[in-house]
């Protein structure tokens, strides 16, 4: 290799995955407008009304925004699309490069079956028509991290077309108000990823890492059926969940396994669509939403000030929160597409068209793949709602957080507690702790078993709710202890000794005659004070309902 090696770790910036959880982040609805520019430093996803329609300052014209997406998902496969090199994130530079990947003359592409299956699976999951014959093309451009001088893609006849993706966005002020929308999918095409260029400015050198060169990508083209950043981000999030459920892509945006380009234009409703711009390389859902909303605002501002929108490629600066024109070499490029002559047409079969006696290793049967599709997120959510009586927005939250659903299901398996109780604990307390400390589910110090045991203790009234919270906090701090250990160490179990409790009640009543008098005079709040005093005397180990019972009995006797 010509270039020097440089470790990637200096660029190994990781963003915490932005979550569109249908929860608190979507509570507010800020209208887009020029004023909201000032808010761009804030951390929340920019808020949008359903359709990006806004009264102009003059109050005469409304604006509508149109957003389409091109999404590149790296296929999760052992080897690359056309070569036997391994696929790994963050391997030492240029350690996963075959002769083909380095474009040594005379090397030829050999299509990876796994990548084709992944494309078919994804196509089926997105309700696409799978083309039984698709073709590969060369797309030419000179770039240092594109060793062959062209990318093999599917420009003329892609593997899947005409699909749809249903996703949900929260509407109104309550998180429970969820609305389902659909975006059409134009096509899914198989193509090669490029390598990576690293610009060493001080030495004015460019360093090339070809580990990524030739990794299989699914390019998913979403029709311009969206109208704001939140819709786009929600659609991408849903696609991400589907890809992960299928196992066709890890779809981790921070690791570049899912990359999004957005096409954005604005126009007055009823008038032709405006000139569009393309915002490239958006690498988190949050930035995607911010970039789109910024771009919509920018375009409206430009047009309202009598300027024109240029058909250009822009990039999003996540620090400044704005889009900027790219020093664009690709904009006016002619890619000089031509058929890839080294790959025969890709032929797929269904059970009806399968040639008799065909070697199963050499043919791909669409029906066979369809029958083996795993459960998709939509179905999972539906089942959660039915099985556990869960609120729709809770089902969204469970799926949106990586690993949370599995955690929830493991707790359910091991506990006798009510599913609603489990849901509430997992989503409110457990998730709350995680968020507070910025941890992923698999980094949690509390295991599903521990939480299940804790909920069992609560369920059989061995501890009170407040004691349970205390135990949970202890669990979080002191790894390795079981809830029962903590309960006995901290003496948190509820008093099961009825007589002893009666004695405490008696003592408390005697010690506070004034409160007893108040109660007898009919002050309903007085009993709460007595309950509080008894709990305090028992170090919160007594069940308030039992205390209340005893107190009432004693007073009426």
């Amino acid at each position, binding site marked *: 290799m010509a270039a020097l090696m440089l470790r990637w770790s200096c660029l190994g910036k990781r963003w915490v995955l932005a979550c569109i959880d249908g929860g608190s982040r979507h509570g507010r609805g800020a209208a887009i407008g020029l004023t909201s520019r000032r808010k761009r430093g804030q951390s929340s996803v920019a808020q949008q009304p359903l359709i990006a329609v806004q009264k102009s300052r003059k109050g005469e014209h409304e604006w509508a925004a149109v957003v389409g997406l091109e999404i590149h998902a790296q296929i999760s496969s052992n080897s690359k699309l056309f070569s036997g090199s391994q696929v790994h994130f963050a391997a030492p530079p240029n350690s996963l490069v075959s002769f083909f990947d380095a474009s040594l*003359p005379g090397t030829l592409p*050999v299509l990876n079956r796994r990548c084709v299956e992944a494309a078919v699976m994804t196509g089926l999951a997105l309700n696409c028509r799978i083309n039984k014959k698709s073709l590969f093309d060369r797309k030419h451009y000179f770039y240092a991290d594109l060793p062959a001088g062209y990318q093999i893609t599917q420009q003329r006849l892609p593997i899947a077309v005409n699909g749809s993706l249903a996703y949900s966005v929260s509407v109104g002020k309550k998180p429970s108000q969820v609305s389902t929308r659909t975006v059409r999918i134009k096509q899914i095409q198989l193509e090669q990823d490029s390598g990576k260029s690293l610009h060493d400015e001080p030495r004015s050198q460019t360093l090339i890492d070809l580990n990524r060169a030739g990794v299989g990508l699914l390019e998913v083209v979403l029709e311009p059926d969206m109208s704001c950043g939140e819709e786009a981000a929600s659609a991408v999030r849903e696609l991400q969940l589907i890809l992960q459920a299928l196992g066709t892509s890890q779809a981790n945006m921070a690791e570049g396994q899912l990359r999004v380009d957005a096409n954005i234009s604005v126009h007055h409703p009823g008038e032709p669509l405006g000139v569009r711009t393309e915002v490239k390389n958006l690498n988190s859902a949050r930035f995607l939403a911010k970039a789109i909303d910024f771009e919509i605002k920018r375009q409206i501002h430009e047009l309202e000030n009598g300027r024109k929108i240029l058909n250009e490629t822009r990039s999003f600066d996540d620090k400044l929160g704005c889009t900027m024109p790219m020093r664009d070499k690709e904009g006016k490029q002619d890619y000089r597409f031509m058929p890839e002559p080294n*790959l025969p047409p890709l032929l797929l079969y269904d059970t009806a068209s399968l040639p008799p006696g065909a070697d199963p290793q050499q043919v791909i049967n669409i029906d066979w793949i369809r029958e083996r599709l795993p459960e998709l997120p939509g179905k999972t959510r539906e089942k959660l709602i039915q099985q556990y009586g869960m609120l729709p927005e809770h089902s969204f939250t469970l799926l949106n957080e990586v690993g949370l659903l599995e955690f929830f299901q493991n707790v359910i398996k091991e506990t006798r507690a009510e599913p609603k109780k489990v849901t509430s604990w997992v989503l409110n307390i457990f998730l709350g702790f995680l968020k507070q400390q910025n941890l992923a589910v698999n980094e949690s110090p509390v295991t599903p078993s521990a939480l299940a045991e804790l909920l069992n203790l609560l369920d059989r009234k061995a501890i009170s709710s407040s004691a349970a919270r205390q135990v949970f906090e202890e669990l979080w701090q002191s790894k390795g202890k079981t809830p029962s250990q903590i309960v006995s160490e901290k003496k948190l179990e509820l008093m099961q000794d009825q007589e002893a409790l009666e004695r405490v009640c008696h003592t408390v009543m005697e010690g506070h005659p004034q409160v007893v008098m108040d109660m007898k005079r009919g002050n309903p709040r007085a009993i709460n004070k007595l309950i509080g005093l008894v709990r305090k005397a028992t170090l919160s180990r007594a069940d308030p309902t039992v205390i209340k019972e005893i107190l009432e009995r004693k007073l009426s006797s």
Partner: protein
Amino acid sequence: MLGRTLREVSTALKQGHITPTELCQKCLSLIKKTKFLNAYITVSEEVALKQAEESEKRYKKGHSLGDLDGIPVAVKDNFSTSSIETTCASNMLKGYVPPYNATVVQKLLDKGAVLMGKTNLDEFAMGSGSTDGVFGPVKNPWSYSKQYREKRKQKAHGENEDSNWLITGGSSGGSAAAVAAFTCFAALGSDTGGSTRNPAAHCGVVGFKPSYGLVSRHGLIPLVNSMDVPGILTRCVDDAAIVLGMLAGHDPKDSTTIQDPVKPFTLPTSADVNKLCIGIPKEYLAPELSSEVRSFWSKAANLFESEGAKVIEVSLPHTSYSIVCYHVLCTSEVASNMARFDGLEYGHRCDINVSTEAMYAATRREGFNDVVRGRILSGNFFLLKENYENYFIKAQKVRRLIANDFVNVFNSGVDVLLTPTTLSEAVPYLEFIKEDNRTRSAQDDIFTQAVNMAGENLTSAIPEPHAKEPEQLHVTSFSYLPMTNELAGIIETFVVT
């Protein structure tokens, strides 16, 4: 020994009349003596001797790997050879040492063949004379034959003897010359529009272009992927059949090779042409066809007819569009295939480093000759969005018509076509370079490139890569039959020279 056929020398090796090392050394010394032919770019002497030694061990143990064990072969310098420089006769790849063997090279080595070296060609196989490579032109061994010298003496007096040498044809001229000069028993060429058959015709050897998809292209540095095939050059048809038998078959590294297993085959000892129907395409009777070739052509046809074959006139009506169509498709693929030579990963890199783009431009300017650059330029023009429909798509459609011409002829009961390979015999170098490469290629490929176009499984047309390719029988071997008969006598004269 060197004048024998591959099969004969193979028998001699098996019987111990000669050892692989002795055979190898004889060839090496002849390569040195014929260095002036410029047939070889690299002579891999050390490797060859080592391989011969190993072959010798096998023969001693009685574990011969078959007919090719110990047989000296040569390979055109556009096939990748592991640890042996592979240049494509271009500045761009000077010093490039591939880390892997082309499948065909590996197959030869696996059968015990001894690699003598890498043979000369037109830069990146773009040409029909083997005159346009960075290592200089290849000289036709027949230039030094008794007959040719006498012919020259009669014709022109006072001409400089040295400048009268003949071209080999191309682009596999080095391989054809190497075989014709007895420096090896078989050589690999490549054939995109006639590059194996043309120099074979001019050098009086057998040039065989297998059907597209029969032999792997993996490791062959491409000219036009959809037309390239590895070619075989030998001194007799039987030898070509032996080599083909070793090379043919599916290669998992080349998706365009046919997957059906290749049935082993041998040529019948006595050819019975009684049931053969031979087609003579009338469009090939071009006005530019020389009278010699024309008379050989009809002589060959008569020979077949007298032996009982049915010889009929057939029509390939789209022949006249073929060369233009070839030009568009060839240059388009060339433009694409040459894009990888950017000076970054391997090969030549210029000293300019002000920007990546400037580096690309200077590297490619310095690395490619005018012919290559010209084809890249026109190919990119044809692929431009505004031109694609008018040129590339149209050429593909014409290509389909040309392919259908062949299909129609063969469906009508014709078994083989008998055509000339070239318009005329080999011409002297000084004559040849009066025209530029493009004109020459267009003239010289006229009879040969149509089958290359017909043989490809047209990307948009034929889904399964099993389409039967037309067979075309060139009169190559026939036109030089008289000379071939005299070979035994010539060899002595030749070696002395």
